[in-house]
């Protein structure tokens, strides 16, 4: 079937199988930042923004995205660059495999709630698993970013 998606701000038309998952479609389009960690919607690695809302692209059919806007990290690197350096300063990037999904969901968090508390950060990102960092370094990174932004404002 034919679908039309606004992918990272650019119109994409493609022919897809009805059972194709959005994650597979996106990777085929070259958006390989989108990672699969579990296939069962438990890890958050495949998070992308669909009409600005974070969704698990392993649980969305490509056909469902027809007519919608999808953003992957490939399209949001500028916005991500504002804060990911603070994660790097903590060494919390580690293996990096969960980073794109974590970064996408953090972007969604900060758009929705520009000044979250630690508990709000933990709650919003609870669905993003990370096996390397132990999570606290990610939190410290976001916290330092928020403080630095506040200092600048």
């Amino acid at each position, binding site marked *: 079937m034919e679908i039309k998606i606004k992918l990272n701000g650019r119109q994409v038309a493609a022919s897809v199988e009805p059972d194709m998952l959005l994650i597979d479609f996106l*990777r085929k389009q070259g958006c*390989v*930042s*989108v*990672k699969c*960690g*579990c*296939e*069962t919607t*438990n*890890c958050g*690695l495949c998070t992308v923004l669909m009409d600005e809302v974070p969704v698990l692209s392993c649980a969305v059919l490509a056909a469902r995205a027809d007519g919608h806007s999808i953003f*992957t*990290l*490939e399209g949001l*690197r500028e916005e*991500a*660059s504002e804060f*990911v*350096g603070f*994660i*790097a*300063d*903590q*060494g*919390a*990037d*580690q*293996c*990096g*495999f*969960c*980073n*794109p999904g974590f*970064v996408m969901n953090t972007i969604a968090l900060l758009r929705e709630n520009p000044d979250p508390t630690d508990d709000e950060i*933990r*709650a919003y*990102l*609870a*669905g*993003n*698993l*990370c*096996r*390397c*960092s*132990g*999570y*606290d*370094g*990610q*939190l410290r990174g976001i916290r330092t970013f928020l403080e630095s932004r506040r200092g600048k404002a």
Partner: protein
Amino acid sequence: MTENHQPNRTYKTVGKTFRKKDSMQLLLGEPTYVDDITDRKDCLTVKILRSPYPNAIVEEIKTDVAKKVPGVAAIYTWEDVPKNRFAIAGQTYPEPSPYDRLILDRHVRFTGDAVAIIAAEDEKAAVKAMKLIKVSYRVLEPVLDMHTAKDNPILVHPEEDWFPPLPVGGDNKRNLVASEQSGHGDVDGVMADCEIRIEHTYHTKAFNQAMMETFRTYTELDRYGRLHVISSTQIVFHVRRILSTALGIPKSKIRVEKPRIGGGFGAKQTAVCEVYPAFVTLKTGRPAKLIYTREESQIAGSPRHEMEVTVRLGANKDGKIRVLDLYTLSNSGAYGEHGPTTVGLSGHKSIPLYTGSLEAYRFCYDVVYTNVQAAGAYRGYGATQGIFALESAVNELAEKLHIDPTVLRERNMVREGMVMDAYYGETANACALDRCMARCKELFHWEEKYPVRELGGGKIRCAGVAMAMQGSCISNLDVGSATVKLSDDGTYNLIIGAADMGTGCDTILAQMVAECMDCELEDVAVFGADTDVSPYDSGSYASSTTYITGKAVEKACTDLKQQIIEVAAGMLNCPAAELSFSGKGVTRMQTGEFVPLTDISYKIQLNSNRSAIATASSCSPVSPPPYMVGMVEIELDKLTGQVTVLDYVAVVDCGIPINPALARIQTEGGLVQGIGHTLFENVTYDSHGKPIENSFMQYKLPTRLDMGHLQVEFENSYEPTGPFGAKSIGEIVINTPAPALAHAIYRATGVWHRELPITPEQIAMGKE
């Protein structure tokens, strides 16, 4: 003692926090992993048909219908593969692990064992074909209980060509992978003389590493027609050897490289999936890729060895621990990878913690085959299991004697300068365990938090404690190497065979180069790991990279500096002895003449018979243990059995942290992984011995809501054999949560839980 070897010296680059060299690539989602960088259009998708039975013989296998599925390129069965047995454990040759595998075996030994390899143009065709393969199995009775495995008439490996490259006490006709006894002193005599004895058995399960990137390998024929393997692996050189043995082709025909790796934790110290696509590429000449699903990683991966550790502890009433007697029964599953070696750590990396007072010890073990998923290497590598057992037993002793468990440990712990009989007679050159305990108590507010505090409503707050140790490398065995070369603008390339799996070893090794060569970290480019390019390295495992490869880096830099001085000597027409190296160039001390590094490096490229490239290897006669103390405060709900981790404080002695931020993250990550296998991650089996927790839906990794507040500090010691005084950090950090949490749960409930995980159900029902 080299110039870098001075205790308490401060450094310019070492001991400082820097971002990981790959961090921005990773955080911005650039293509860096196996599946991101291998997108040839003609690549075949590889799938594995897996056995539905734990023990069966393939009587007949019909692939004719499956082969007719459009898009199917090839299907291979046991009849098609070489008949030479091999081991997929990533270990130095000759491996302690038995050669008990074929690429495909007619005898399948666990539910999930490989029966056929399918290669197709796309995944859909491969999966469709997989369903159309008709297999007739002669189903055999399995051995599913590790307690009945030894000398069971049903043999997991009855084959005559089972081969152990090293004598480790194994015997396939007894379902024994390995067996050994060791000890020191009169164990039975001292035990009889003790005023108090404790004996319990502790059970840990086949926990999964659950790294975020599952097992995966891409293979192709390169422009010379050689097998080019791009794999998510910790062990490029071992993979090359394993493939050479399995496929029967020389190593000169194989090139193995690893790009970025999405986590390993030891799982990728075993060549779990490499042989399958490699075989497809050799047979078809086409690129092939195999990506394990999460389910495959859970049921046909390489998890922790399930172990039962029986501790017999003898002490005096004053809390003096006089004798320890451990017996470990380890379940290697269907194949023997890492079986003979992991088990050793359950005793040799737990008992030495009590060197301070120990008069005698004994450590015996059996490692058995059963018809469940084969185990492998997982961060902690047996020490985790042994330390859960021994630290729990010591906590049981403390509670029985009504002695504060930290005080009890202070009376018995290993201290700097002691000879550790249970640790191959090594001396604790660098040991700050006593300071770790003191500092941890202070940070944690032990005196306030150790007493049980009832909050009302069935809620209780209390605390638990544990110590841990590990090693730094496998002594007299692991080899780490580094090549450092000067580039023509005065910068450097560092080339290694160790594998950064996210831990940051590329960065910390580059920090060492920057320190030695007195340059900036950004002046050091790192590359690893590729068997065609890298100098030989055993690989990243056994907590060896910082300690062993780091030492090789230091040696290579010393050599390179001398080379640079000699080139400058030629330019200045003076003896090299008159020259001294600084990061910017070379100075002739007497005259003040100075040659900038850039001039030296250009000189090497012009009318020169000299190069500026140094390769060094390193091996160590000792494996200096890092030490640590962990303390946890929990809130336990007696009604529901729910445990909430409130605070975890860990103080670690890793020698010195080369990069404090990365060492801290290692610690925090290890603590949370340890909290996971203690409270959430369960492994139970169906009637066919297949893990029920085969997805993240059931295998519950801790989330950021599950780990409470972590606090990590370092107490430095100085290891004279390590680079800049460093020991290891990567593995030890997973070892304290299980015994510390079990201790806290006992404090709240009065029940010792001696099996992991300790779930709310077990706590609420008061089951041990």
